[in-house]
């Protein structure tokens, strides 16, 4: 009964979105206030219906209702509750339902919260928003209905892929979806701005919270996915340049660019057309991401639920929105006034360079991801484009971006003073250089990646902190006054510095793990002691244990450094009989300076086991950095809430 209500409300949601498009369209064309007002409120009804539908499918998962094909294929009565719930979006149908749920939720927030937006414009934004909702709702109902029934329900389900039964992965897809879907709002804003011909600072201030929000979610989602790969896939890799990873990384790069260009638009009323174009691109890339994951057109480790017919449907949606958006841009973009009112040495120029590097690096990733497909179509050859290619072509962009960053923040808007900016950066530059030389002399061998990476990180971190101290005049004025100024700095400034610091932290992690990781592969007998790096490892025993829905072999290790016990570690090898698969559960002893990472391998006879041991220096900084970046985004976002500011802006528009 509950599932029938869910199914029905999904169908009603589809009808409501048609209704909303109609009401808003007519209301806008004839400029009828009541219709426009009613049309925006329909967003709440829409969200309500999709919410009911989502809750009912969750209910079916929690209660293991195996009369639903979806539940049978992805759940099992013995599965822990958390994974029963995360099983809802651990599959194609459910994840698409989550997608529209988020879509309608954001539409609802936009309709209700952003009161400062003039009604007519808001209606136009919601018009495009509900067109997207309609496309996805029909996609769900016609090609991937989560409410499809089984004629003969089985006694139990087939279980969720055990790799996905993990707290990290339970939240990785929803976070990414929040990010992807948030971009739909910037997209709708861009189209509405094109139609109404008004792209200005006010527009930017309405869009920017959404861009920030999407960016925060994308950052967290990607970081969580990478962390999951690190501890779950069994050899401690954290980024594979897999097509599906790229699918989330490209929108992230474009959104990062968009974040910076919206800033220019908001502060200085420049880069109008470019920002609109980026908004369209960002959402298009997130659609491509969905298409890539769902179609299985490019082989990937993520192909859990792929089906070509659905791929074609998403392809049509993608072409419709990307093509439609770009066409609208070409037709109406001319109406939007451009401008170029800033000098060569200025914050604007620095941000343009930032955008250039981010967007072109995203293009490089895009070309690399789709190149096998292109070559196969043109020449009929099958080729691969893997990590060696991406590392070679993508890294230079990030190096350039890192070098640029401290200059950019030191230049002022409109007309900067380059010699003053350079002078203020002498101290961080010298410190970073000294650090690099120090590290180079400490490490064995002449590999440059580690020292250069840490130098860039130091340059960014010190440059960022330095800019703050210069801004509040430490050294120039009394300390008390400087501190008062520091307190008075807008939240956005804090957010910006924080995000830049995070970027520096991530570079520390990446450079260290790529340069100084130690790996050891060997056969270990129970009782054996062996040395890796400065640590001594001893295998005490291996025993059989039994979990809720798996069986496992678990090793027990003791780790010593300088004869004192450093850690006790328990790597596991698990078997999930229902899903018929094995996974490794690496034992990780986490630390800020290093992770110890042990993987238990195969039984080698005579009480001996294959064991992989790693020492991974500074690896956690990769994710700490991502988290700090996201935190910076949140702080910046929090500065946007005071109602005062919105009133001020309403007058301006």
């Amino acid at each position, binding site marked *: 009964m509950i599932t029938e209500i869910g199914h029905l409300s999904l169908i009603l949601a589809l009808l409501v979105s048609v209704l909303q498009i109609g009401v808003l369209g007519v209301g806008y064309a004839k400029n009828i206030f009541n219709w426009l007002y009613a049309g925006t409120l329909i967003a709440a009804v829409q969200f309500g219906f999709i919410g009911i539908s989502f809750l009912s499918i969750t209910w079916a998962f929690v209660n293991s209702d195996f009369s639903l094909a979806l539940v049978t294929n992805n759940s099992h009565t013995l599965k822990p509750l958390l994974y029963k719930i995360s099983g809802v979006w651990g599959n194609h149908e459910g994840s698409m339902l989550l997608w529209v749920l988020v879509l309608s939720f954001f539409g609802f927030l936009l309709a209700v919260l952003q009161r400062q937006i003039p009604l007519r414009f808001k209606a136009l934004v919601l018009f495009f928003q509900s067109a997207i909702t309609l496309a996805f709702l029909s996609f769900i109902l016609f090609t991937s209905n989560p409410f499809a029934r089984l004629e003969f329900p089985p006694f139990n389900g087939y279980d969720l892929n055990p790799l996905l039964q993990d707290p990290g992965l339970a939240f990785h897809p929803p976070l990414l979806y929040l990010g992807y879907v948030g971009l739909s709002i910037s997209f709708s804003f861009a189209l509405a701005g094109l139609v109404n011909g008004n792209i200005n600072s006010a527009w930017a201030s309405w869009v920017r919270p959404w861009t920030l929000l999407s960016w925060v979610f994308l950052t967290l989602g990607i970081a969580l996915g990478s962390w999951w790969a690190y501890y779950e896939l*069994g*050899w401690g*890799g954290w980024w*594979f340049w*897999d097509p599906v990873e790229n699918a989330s990384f490209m929108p992230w790069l474009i959104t990062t660019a968009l974040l910076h260009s919206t800033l220019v638009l908001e502060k200085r009323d420049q880069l109008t057309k470019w920002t609109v174009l980026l908004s369209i691109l960002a959402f298009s890339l997130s659609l491509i991401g969905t298409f890539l994951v769902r179609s299985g057109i490019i*082989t*990937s*480790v993520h*192909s859990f639920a792929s089906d070509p017919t659905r791929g074609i449907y998403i392809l049509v949606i993608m072409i419709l929105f990307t093509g439609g958006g770009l066409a609208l841009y070409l037709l109406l973009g001319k109406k939007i006034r451009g401008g*170029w*009112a800033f*000098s*060569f040495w200025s914050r604007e120029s620095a941000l343009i360079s930032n955008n*250039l*590097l981010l967007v*072109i*690096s995203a*293009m490089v990733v895009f*070309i*690399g991801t789709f*190149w096998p497909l292109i*070559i196969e179509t043109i*020449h009929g*050859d*099958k*080729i*691969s*484009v*893997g*990590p*060696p*290619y991406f590392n*070679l*072509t993508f890294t*230079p*962009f990030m190096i350039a971006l890192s070098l640029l960053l401290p200059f950019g923040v030191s230049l002022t808007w409109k007309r900067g003073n380059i010699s003053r900016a350079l002078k203020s950066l002498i101290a961080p530059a010298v410190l970073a250089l000294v650090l690099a030389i120090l590290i180079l002399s400490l490490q064995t061998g002449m590999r440059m990646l580690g020292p250069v990476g840490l130098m860039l990180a130091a340059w960014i971190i010190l440059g960022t902190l330095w800019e703050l101290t210069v801004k509040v005049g430490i050294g120039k*004025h009394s300390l008390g006054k400087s501190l008062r100024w520091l307190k008075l700095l807008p939240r956005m400034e804090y957010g910006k510095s924080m995000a830049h610091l995070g970027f520096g932290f991530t570079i520390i992690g990446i450079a260290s793990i790529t340069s100084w990781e130690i790996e050891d*592969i*060997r*056969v270990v007998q129970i009782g054996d002691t062996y040395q890796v790096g400065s640590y001594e490892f001893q295998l005490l025993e291996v025993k*059989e*244990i*039994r979990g809720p829905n798996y*069986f*496992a*072999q678990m090793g027990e290790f003791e780790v010593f450094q300088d004869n004192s016990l450093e850690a006790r570690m328990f790597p596991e*090898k698990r*078997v999930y*009989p229902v899903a*018929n*698969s*094995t*996974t*490794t559960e690496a034992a990780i002893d986490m630390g800020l300076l290093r992770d110890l990472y042990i*993987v238990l*391998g*195969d039984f*080698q006879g005579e009480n001996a086991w*294959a064991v*992989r041991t790693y020492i991974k220096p500074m690896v956690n900084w990769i994710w700490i950095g991502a988290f700090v970046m996201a935190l910076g985004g949140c702080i910046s976002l929090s500065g946007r809430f005071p109602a005062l500011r919105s009133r001020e802006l309403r007058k301006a528009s």
Partner: protein
Amino acid sequence: MKRFITLFVLLVFLPLSVLGVEPNEILDDPQLEQRARDISQNIRCMVCQNENIDDSAAELARDFRILIREMLAEGNTDQQIYDYIEDRYGEFALLKPRFDPKNWILYFSGPILIILCLILIYRRYRNSKFEELPANDLTPEEKQKIEELISK
């Protein structure tokens, strides 16, 4: 009984290996071994979804790793090994596409795009009249007034 079931399940399923390089594959010469690892990371495991043979647990990947080590022990250069694998198994096996005309777009599009955009942007700067506008610098009196306000 419970213990028996646990043992049984583990015995039936665990032979599915979950690691890449196994201890018995490793070469004694650490330099050769390092070269073998580096090469392995550039070769695709062709029966897996998207993994290199160094990380993969598949049977085929193991055969490849052993092949590479044998060839290294015989004194082949890295390039000879890549060529050999490409000859037998096609370009699909290489994770880094060959640097030949077919792939030039792949390698050059990034740099070319950057240069193109820089030229376009440079022309925008040249055409913009902004630099010719008076700088509107503060007069000495204004500067003094600001200093006073700041040091209050």
